[in-house]
């Protein structure tokens, strides 16, 4: 039986974001977010019987989280596929709930990456066949993909910069965005080169932060505080772990996860009102718009140009400001879910997309490795 519409997001929250200061631990942020999400849903901690998490800090994250929160789950899933994990957790939670394995699932994440030194805590091992060449993980891997996309399709640095500018325009409408200053294409081009063709403003922020998402059955969801945000479809795919093993650096496994999610949701990209695409780097947005069917392969650079994904543009993309300008606490996938649910509920204030009934969430993990897509919808999409 298809999981379409069988489970719904009923509570979402961010922890403190940006720079939380010394002392707070990632688990403290999970605690904050969990408390706020329960309040958002009108649920009690005692209602939670399924735990989902991934972490670069905790080797057994659902155990650490269960202990800290005082929750003894009957179902636990620590699927670890980098930043995409949390979109995957939503999918897994919906299926587990539908199968009766748990009733209220808590997906949570926290990171103090910025306060604890600003270095990316990646927890990533290095392939011995790549290590001698000292690529900077993970930016060099995305830079390689960008170089290939530029070679094959004539994509330019200016077009990549347009992605960062659009994200910033959205961030200006989001009081919680970490960076809200003016940004121009020239600013991006002139910023410090990190791993060519990607400069520092082509890269996501390094912030603290976390979040929590509560999921339950559609039946139970209707009795709770906020309008349910239904999971209509989901798909996950991965074809490689290391960049040297990626079959074609211009095509991600989103080309498989996206269609899978659309099929389950019984709709296509033309029905999507808001797209939240994991923008760890500017090239991501270009690749995912192509792979998820918003434009043809190779046309992503043109698609993002001229303000077409900015506020008031043709497609609302990364309305929170994205990993580029809102927050990117090591892994960003959970915050995609938070924004998507709020858009579908119509809670986004200045940046609210009118009539946002269908949101596409797309998570990326590793080095363009894991791709997980989910389609969320309001009551009227069922």
């Amino acid at each position, binding site marked *: 039986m298809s999981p379409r519409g069988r489970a719904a997001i009923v509570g979402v929250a961010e922890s403190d974001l940006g720079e939380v200061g010394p002392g707070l631990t990632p688990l403290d942020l999970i605690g904050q977010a969990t408390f706020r999400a329960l309040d958002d849903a009108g649920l009690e901690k005692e209602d939670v019987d399924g735990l989902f998490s991934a972490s670069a800090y905790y080797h057994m994250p659902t155990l650490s989280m269960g202990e800290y929160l005082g929750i003894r789950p009957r179902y636990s899933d620590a699927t670890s596929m980098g930043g995409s994990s949390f979109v995957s957790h939503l999918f897994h939670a919906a299926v587990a709930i539908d199968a009766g394995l748990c009733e209220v699932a808590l997906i949570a994440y926290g990171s103090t990456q910025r306060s604890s030194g600003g270095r990316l805590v990646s927890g990533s091992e290095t392939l011995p066949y790549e290590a001698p060449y000292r690529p900077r993980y993970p930016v060099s891997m995305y830079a390689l993909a960008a170089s290939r996309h530029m070679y094959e399709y004539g994509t330019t640095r200016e077009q990549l910069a347009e992605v960062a500018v659009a994200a910033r325009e959205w961030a200006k409408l989001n009081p919680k965005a970490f960076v809200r200053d003016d940004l121009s294409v020239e600013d991006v081009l002139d910023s410090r080169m990190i791993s*060519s063709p990607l400069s520092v403003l082509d890269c996501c922020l390094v912030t603290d932060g976390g979040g929590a998402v509560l999921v339950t059955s559609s039946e139970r969801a209707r009795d709770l505080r906020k309008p349910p945000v239904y999971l209509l479809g989901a798909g996950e795919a991965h074809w490689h772990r290391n960049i040297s093993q990626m079959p074609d650096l211009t095509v991600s496994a989103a080309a498989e996860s996206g269609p899978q999610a659309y099929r389950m949701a019984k709709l296509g990209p033309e029905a999507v009102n808001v797209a939240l695409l994991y923008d760890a780097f500017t090239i991501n947005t270009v690749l995912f718009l192509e792979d998820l069917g918003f434009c043809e392969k190779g046309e992503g650079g043109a698609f993002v140009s001229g303000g077409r994904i900015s506020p008031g543009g043709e497609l609302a993309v990364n309305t929170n400001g994205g990993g580029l300008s809102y927050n990117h606490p090591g892994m960003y996938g959970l915050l995609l879910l938070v924004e998507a649910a709020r858009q579908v509920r119509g809670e986004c204030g200045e940046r609210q997309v009118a009539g946002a009934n269908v949101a596409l969430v797309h998570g990326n993990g590793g080095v363009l490795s894991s791709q997980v897509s989910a389609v969320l919808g309001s009551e009227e999409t069922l």
Partner: protein
Amino acid sequence: MRRRFFRCSGESYRTVGAWSFRGGYEEGKGEIAVASEDAPAGAPAEVYGRYLEGGRLGFQRCRDCSSMVFYPRVLCPVCGSVDLEWGTSGGRGVVYATTAVHSRDGEPYNVALVDLEEGIRMMSRVEGIPAEEVEVGRRVRFEVREEDDGPVAVFVPMAEPEEPEESEEPAR
């Protein structure tokens, strides 16, 4: 037939078609055992390392489905066969993707993905020209560099336009 296996350039070693093979996997030995008398034996990573120590770029080919396999492993990721044989690359490749890694201290250095003529792709770096000048599509040739942790496969630009073909005959 006696072949010369270890030459320092990694190039123009006796080739069969574009690549050369020898050795193989012996069932029941629990490790890669290369049949040829002077072929390296051992775990996949060790065999690769020993080829590199000999100045050559080793990789595997599946005897069942003919897929080229890199990085080295104990089974073919295409068909699942454990019948892999080792070969060495002629060393000619093309830059598939490239980046110059910048740091606050020191010159930018290149990181590239190189497609070898034999059909394998590997991460490496292109030396001999500034990191930012390495371009996708550039023809490059394998060389070995000795580094603190052992020998490393790198590439240098081949003369453009196309070089005359090297002799197929091994030095003997």
